[in-house]
């Protein structure tokens, strides 16, 4: 079931939550809506679900216009940020709820409901906990029950709002992998909202980066990481060092003042920043501020001649060879960088 979003806009009290969104979500994909808080990602998800209605624009499920359809008739599964399990019902009754609420003619028999719920509890690895109440479950278990409940009505689309937001790091990592695995088994078109770029990259087939009510870029995790189309996407997908400078006639980036044609900034990932003791043509002088060991890698903070703090990530081995200490004078050189003009456009030749 593909989802097509056309020219969707939404305003809350003069606040532009969504600004002319166009998006295509192909059948069977797991797509992440990624962005900082307040970027409109949750609003977009709720509009897809029918919990919120767009001021302008249309939503199509598999080519069918569902814009005016109520949430009941859209056949979506929705997993809420805080799970929203029915607290007065057992796990079994929570999962069975959607089936029991069907109109009498379509309602499965008690026996069918029993076997369906058992299947789903097996799927989410929660068999044996059917008689528990939500308050007796851990956060991760509640999350899985919320998923099983959403899947019970066989939705055409699964929507998840910050599904791992309220969990601790370890459970979160486990559940991420598990969700990815679940999606590979069930193959239902899924959209999930997150503000965590690592989560988006790890779980999804495709990431939609949003900012201030607009879609900044859509692509696979690799595409986004390697070919960010603007500084916002580049910065949002990982740590970054920014060098201010200029372009010359051949669109080459320089930090010195010669041959200036247009001002530009170069964006460099910490692991692409090379540190050496010896100067060479293009390198920049810097002072070591701190050396922090992060297990497998070492993070070095530096202050360059323009008084900008830089961050470099080295392997443990390299750091041992260099033997950096606080206050050392070194030279840094980007191995790879992405240059954007002042207006945010990518400079092709870097």
């Amino acid at each position, binding site marked *: 079931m593909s989802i097509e979003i056309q020219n969707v806009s939404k305003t809350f009290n003069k606040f532009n939550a969504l600004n002319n969104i166009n998006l295509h979500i192909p059948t069977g994909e797991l797509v992440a809506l990624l962005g900082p808080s307040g970027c409109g990602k949750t609003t977009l998800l709720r509009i897809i679900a029918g*919990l919120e209605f767009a001021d302008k624009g249309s939503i199509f499920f598999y080519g069918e216009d569902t814009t005016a359809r109520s949430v009941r008739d859209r056949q979506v599964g929705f997993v809420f940020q805080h799970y929203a399990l*029915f607290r*007065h019902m057992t796990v079994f009754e929570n999962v069975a709820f959607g089936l029991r*609420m069907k109109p009498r003619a379509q309602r499965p028999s008690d026996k069918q409901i029993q076997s369906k719920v058992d299947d789903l509890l097996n799927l989410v690895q929660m068999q044996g906990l059917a008689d528990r109440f939500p*308050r007796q479950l851990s956060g991760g278990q509640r999350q899985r029950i919320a998923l099983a409940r*959403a899947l*019970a009505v066989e939705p055409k689309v699964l929507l998840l709002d910050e599904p791992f937001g309220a969990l601790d790091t370890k459970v979160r990592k486990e559940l991420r992998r598990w969700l990815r695995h679940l999606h590979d088994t069930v193959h239902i078109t899924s959209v999930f909202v997150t503000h965590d770029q690592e989560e988006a990259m790890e779980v999804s087939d495709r990431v939609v980066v949003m900012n201030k009510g607009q879609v900044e870029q859509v692509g696979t995790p690799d595409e986004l990481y390697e070919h960010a189309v603007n500084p916002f996407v580049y910065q949002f997908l990982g740590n970054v060092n920014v060098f201010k400078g200029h372009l010359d006639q051949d669109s080459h980036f320089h930090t010195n003042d010669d041959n200036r044609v247009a001002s530009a900034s170069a964006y460099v990932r910490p692991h692409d920043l090379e540190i050496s003791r010896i100067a060479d043509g293009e390198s920049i002088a810097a002072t070591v501020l701190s050396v922090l060991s992060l297990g497998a890698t070492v993070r070095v903070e530096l202050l360059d001649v323009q008084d900008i703090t830089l961050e470099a990530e080295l392997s443990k081995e390299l750091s041992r060879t260099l033997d950096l200490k606080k206050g050392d004078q070194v030279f840094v050189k980007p191995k790879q960088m992405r240059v954007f003009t002042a207006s945010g456009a990518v400079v092709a030749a870097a």
Partner: protein
Amino acid sequence: MHTLSVQTQSTAITEPRWVRYTLISITLIFLSLFLLIPLISVFTEGLRGGINKYFAAMVEPDAIAAIQLTLITAAIAVPLNLVFGVAAAWAIAKFEFTGKSLLITLIDLPFAVSPVISGLIFVLLFGLQGVFGEWLAASDIKLIFAVPGIVLATIFVTFPFVARELIPLLQSQGNDEEEAALVLGATGWQTFWHVTLPNIKWGLLYGVILCNARAMGEFGAVSVVSGHIRGLTNTMPLHVEILYNEYNFIAAFAVASLLAILALITLALKTFVEWRVQTQVLINDPDVAS
């Protein structure tokens, strides 16, 4: 099952022994002077003429009529306020609209004005000289100095109880579960019946108990609209007043003791429901439960 969290007392905020005992004694003395002794005296005064006179006062036709009227009034006012209260609380807790704070103030109005004024409002509206008086007289509808007036005044005075109890409860629960039910295909009515109501039932019952207690005990507003017609428009509190004014103390206290028993039952129910509400709050907020 979860258990209530055990409150450990911090010595830092514990007062010296003499302060604690003084405070406890003051409270106890005050309670006995103003609550316990009057309560006991109601029963002793009622039973002063012996058990036969005590029961005779209750089965006398005017007393029975007063008891019946009180029960009828409560039987109409409480269910209506249950429906109004749930509707108002729902509207305030779940929707955003202009004039919401005005509505909240209006719900509190019956608490804010003196019951006598509440009664007077109905006389001014529906009495013979009132705004709708002529029209009502022409249509041969009698509200004031009749049962409908008493019911109206009682509904007005007891309106806030259910709504006041439910608004904070509904607000604290948010819309998540209702939204989840709708996404799963439930209709609005199914959502209310299967999701909202089970979550608020104890708070609702608490509001109903308070509403009922007030409906049966209301004096001021009812006194103004009733006209004190014996056997017809006298509720129990009014009947007590009339008997007392006629120096019929034994009968007055006997009927009063019935109201007192009612209050004691209400108190017991209220304590039980309060305890249930508290456990429900703990269930709602699992972080508080241990």
